[in-house]
């Protein structure tokens, strides 16, 4: 049985833990709002872009001269996985879930005899991937110094990926990130970016446009931008998801700390009472013995 002093110290330490988790939750809430705003601000661009691309792609996909970024290299032997996670931990299952999805995907591909190459974005994912799929790990993109994700960050990742594609280092690229649903749920998602896939838009007014300089030139110009745009959108979703996950994880931690304090306080009071009772018994029986 712990002494009164031990209990008192435990309570004090849990209380300070609760203060920390509470503060982290509030910081995450503020960052989440900013991340959501950034994600929202990018939405008009992404939507318009995808709409135009979908129209263009459906027109060009059938032709033999379609760019490789759209039609693929004709093989699916080598896969590139871009795994995006957070730079920091303490955000519940966020990093673990993304890494798990990527790992399952990689193992499925390996079981089929494919070659897998992995690029990681974010320190936490790198640690997991390196530990378990170390021999497939080829590169890490460090964004730890970046406070606000800008399009330039996405562009540099895209540039890197495209250079590898042009050099014939892989056939299919998939990005892994967490899609932000709301504060309590973020879905780890795999999205194939090369060859590009576009959702069919309802009643697409495709093929009615004139193209300048030419349809092929426009497509060739836009496809690489599409990769950057998708990576940018994924990075923003990821940033919002991370803060959301951290917020709910810290909310849980705060609540748990509260429960623990209550429990410890009850225990403390009980043993205090027991000590008093004991003392009284001693005094009374001492008096009776006289």
């Amino acid at each position, binding site marked *: 049985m712990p002494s009164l002093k031990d209990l008192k110290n435990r309570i004090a330490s849990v209380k300070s833990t609760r203060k920390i988790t509470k503060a982290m939750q509030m910081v995450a809430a503020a960052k989440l709002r900013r991340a959501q705003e*950034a994600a929202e*601000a*990018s939405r*008009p*661009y*992404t939507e*318009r*872009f995808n709409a*135009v691309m979908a129209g*263009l792609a459906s027109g060009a996909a059938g032709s033999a001269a379609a760019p490789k970024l759209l039609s693929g290299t004709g093989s699916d032997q080598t896969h590139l996985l871009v795994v995006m996670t957070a730079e920091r931990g303490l955000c519940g299952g966020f990093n673990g879930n993304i890494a798990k999805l990527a790992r399952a995907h990689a193992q499925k591909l390996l079981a089929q005899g494919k070659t897998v190459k992995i690029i990681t974005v974010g320190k936490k994912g790198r640690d997991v991937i390196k530990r378990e799929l170390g021999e497939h790990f080829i590169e890490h993109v460090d964004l730890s110094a970046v406070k606000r994700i*800008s*399009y330039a960050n*996405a*562009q540099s990742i895209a540039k890197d990926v495209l250079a590898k594609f042009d050099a014939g280092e892989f056939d299919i690229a998939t990005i892994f990130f967490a899609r932000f649903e709301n504060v309590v749920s973020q879905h780890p998602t795999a999205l194939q970016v090369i060859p590009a896939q576009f959702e069919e838009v309802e009643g697409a*007014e495709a093929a*009615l*446009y*004139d*193209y*300048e*300089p030419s349809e092929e*030139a*426009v497509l060739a*110009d*836009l496809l690489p*931008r599409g990769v950057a*745009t998708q990576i*940018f959108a994924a990075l923003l979703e990821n940033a919002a998801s991370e803060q959301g996950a951290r917020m709910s994880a810290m909310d849980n931690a705060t609540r748990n700390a509260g429960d623990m304090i209550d429990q410890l306080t009850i225990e403390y009071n009980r043993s205090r009472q027991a000590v008093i009772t004991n003392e009284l018994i001693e005094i009374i029986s001492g008096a009776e013995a006289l």
Partner: protein
Amino acid sequence: MANVQFDLVSPERRLASVEATEVQIPGADGDMTAMADHAPTIATLRPGVLKVLHSGGTDEYIVSGGFAEITATGVSVLAEQALPRAEMTQELFDEMLSEAKAAYVSAQEVFKNEPGPVDDAAKLLSDMVAIGGHIGLTANN
């Protein structure tokens, strides 16, 4: 005269959404002006100055690459980088210029025997320099 709905968006924000009478676009093949009832067109952009004429006056934006979607009733410009002309400073311009220069130099090294990409990079650089000329900033160094 009929107006067109003009939208200018970059990946990071929406810069403008106004009713315009006329939009002057720096297209890859040359400048063009879009007015109401323009034939539906998708055009890629070169770095340049985008001019929007509307009832309240004229707005100018610096854009660097991207594309424009023109329909009979609207013009949407999706620019990779865009900013109002007033926000363009000498430092920013120098930065963009040095980026273009670096791209040109690296293109010269990588594609020694292919003129295509080198010419593209040279064009980009000269477009950048031309922007400077348009808005009164000098392309030094």
